[in-house]
């Protein structure tokens, strides 16, 4: 994809940085009632662009439009892209309806991801709320596949209900690992649910980590992240070691449309992953 882009840029008809590159839908998994995971491969083969965990792509549904969607695949796997889409607007609904064989446009990857280099050798706390697990999944792959590079790993995943859990089978297999604690909690459940009921912040007090050498990663609704960051800070983790993946309306992904600003930051360029220390003052204000 990048080679293709370079070739176009030197040609006369360069369609510019907004042009999507066609990809084929290889497979489609329905995660929940409104959430679907797509596996994509560039048309014409090739390895596809490499990405860092936490980055995102602009996905394009032909004739409908574009949406910013996080990378959710294993960053070490070449040749395919994995995206989990919740049908909310017209674009995400069109993307959710794609079937194997269909074509989708991709441009990216964009943004700054999780601080993987800073995490090595340290304890890692991962907190996910709802669809917020999707952008964290690449870093969870990284943690499990290079488990010896990290200290203690605590993963806390909260969802509204058991039926809204993403990557269900994968989580089951991850939870069999004895070198990592993967906790799942839901807001409410019927009596068939044997797991925890509650919110992710309740799991913070007994999470095992050394606050002085811990990196925390989180993604979810803003209020969940705000409260989670406060809970982790109360346990002694420095705000500069707490990283949030932020979301805002996004049109261009290249810091030209102005939509995704959060304080002085373009979420597309300076984020989506930003340290709590830099954004807490803006999280504290309404309607930023």
């Amino acid at each position: 994809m990048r080679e293709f882009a370079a070739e176009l840029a030197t040609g006369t008809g360069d369609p510019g940085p907004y042009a999507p590159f066609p990809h084929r839908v290889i497979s489609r998994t329905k995660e929940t009632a409104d959430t679907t995971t797509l596996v994509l491969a560039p048309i014409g083969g090739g390895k596809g662009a490499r990405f860092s965990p936490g980055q995102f792509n602009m996905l394009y549904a032909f004739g409908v439009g574009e949406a910013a969607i996080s990378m959710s695949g294993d960053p070490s796997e070449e040749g395919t892209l994995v995206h989990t889409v919740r049908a909310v607007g017209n674009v995400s609904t069109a993307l959710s309806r794609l079937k194997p064989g269909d074509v989708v446009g991709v441009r990216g990857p964009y943004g700054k991801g999780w601080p993987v280099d800073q995490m090595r050798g340290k304890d890692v706390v991962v907190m996910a709320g709802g669809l917020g697990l999707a952008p964290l999944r690449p870093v969870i792959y990284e943690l499990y596949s290079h488990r010896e590079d990290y200290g203690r790993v605590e993963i806390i995943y909260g969802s509204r209900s058991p039926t809204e859990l993403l990557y269900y089978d994968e989580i089951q297999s991850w939870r069999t690992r004895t070198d990592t604690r993967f906790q799942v909690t839901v807001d409410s459940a019927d009596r068939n649910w044997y797991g925890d009921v509650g919110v992710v912040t309740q799991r913070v007090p007994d999470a095992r980590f050394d606050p002085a050498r811990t990196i925390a990663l989180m993604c979810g609704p803003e209020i969940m992240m705000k409260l989670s960051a406060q809970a982790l800070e109360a346990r002694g983790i420095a705000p500069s070691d707490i990283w949030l993946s932020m979301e805002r309306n996004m049109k261009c992904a290249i810091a030209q449309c102005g939509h995704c600003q959060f304080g002085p930051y373009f979420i597309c360029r300076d984020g989506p992953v930003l340290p709590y220390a830099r954004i807490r003052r803006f999280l504290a204000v309404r309607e930023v």
Partner: protein
Amino acid sequence: MSSVHRSIGDRLVLERSDFPMLLEGLRSRGYVTLGPVVRDGAIVYGPISRVEDLPIGWTDRQEAGSYRLEQRHDQALFGYTVGPHSWKKYLFPAHERLWTAERSPEGFHVLPRSEREPRYAFLGVRACELAAIRIQDRVFDGAFKDPGYHQRRSEALRIAVQCTQAGNTCFCASMGTGPRVDADHDLALTEILTGSAHYFLVDVGSERGAELATDLPLRPATEADVRAVDDLLEKTSASMGRTMNAVGLRDLLLGRPEHSRWTEVGKRCLTCTNCTLACPTCFCSTTEEVPDLDADRVERWRRWDSCFTLGFTHQGRASVRTSASSRYRQWLTHKLASWHDQFGTSGCVGCGRCITWCPVGIDITEEVAALRKEEPVAVPAGGAR
């Protein structure tokens, strides 16, 4: 006309009677000349084919929420300041096709860009507007190059005009962007009218400007001419209708998101978007998908958007900035504070358009002055709400 070699830095004089030759020089070089014209009771930018297309003998009287054209007592070609338009409408058009794609057996493919960009000559670019173009360059011609902007911008010839009078809503002197034109011009003109004399001092600012000057009937400027220009610019500087203290504004505004003035201005602001449309640096845009009827061919269009609209921050099922005060705060804080973080410069050039064209006369300089005032009770920073 025998051609004479001209160089960057030359200071020359063009008589008003020879001004048509400048337009002819632009035409013969294939430029589409654009400049100020009177339309719908305002001085806007449009095509110029003859000197008479310029607003000869007109001036503008501007105040917060008010703009009126008036007759001058002379026949000045550039005897006014800036109107509702800026050059951004040519470099960053309000509506522009980004790309076209067609359905194909492989799904779809994006067609090579076929747009032929015109070669513009901008006539009458003011110092604040050159500053505004420099600011938009950082947005569209930085890490990601917008091909249309890049091509139009690098081709566009800029014939600047130094302001010999300031408007009531002008404050370029405060922002350090004018009235003197000192960079990015191909030629800079200063119109001088004294008694029966009517001429232009011409500063050559680039090779292209020098080339254009070769076949113009110019004489070297005298010391008296140069002094006349300096006096005029000094007078303009001293007569700005507004001032803004821009020192330390970045930290000040980012540090006062809870200032009561935001609520107060939010009660007056209509969120009409006029300020962002008139602003020569505002760059926000949205994209639109335009399929043909059977959706075999689609076009992706970009159009100006504004942080004052409710839909601007729509996300999921709701918008982030629902109140007028939060949108005004975003606009002002972005323009004067976070622009520094993003692009290494203020986003304000002191042109005053947002003041003049605000239907309720909200004055950015007045708002900044109010925001500078300490609140009696400090709001705890960083506290949860």
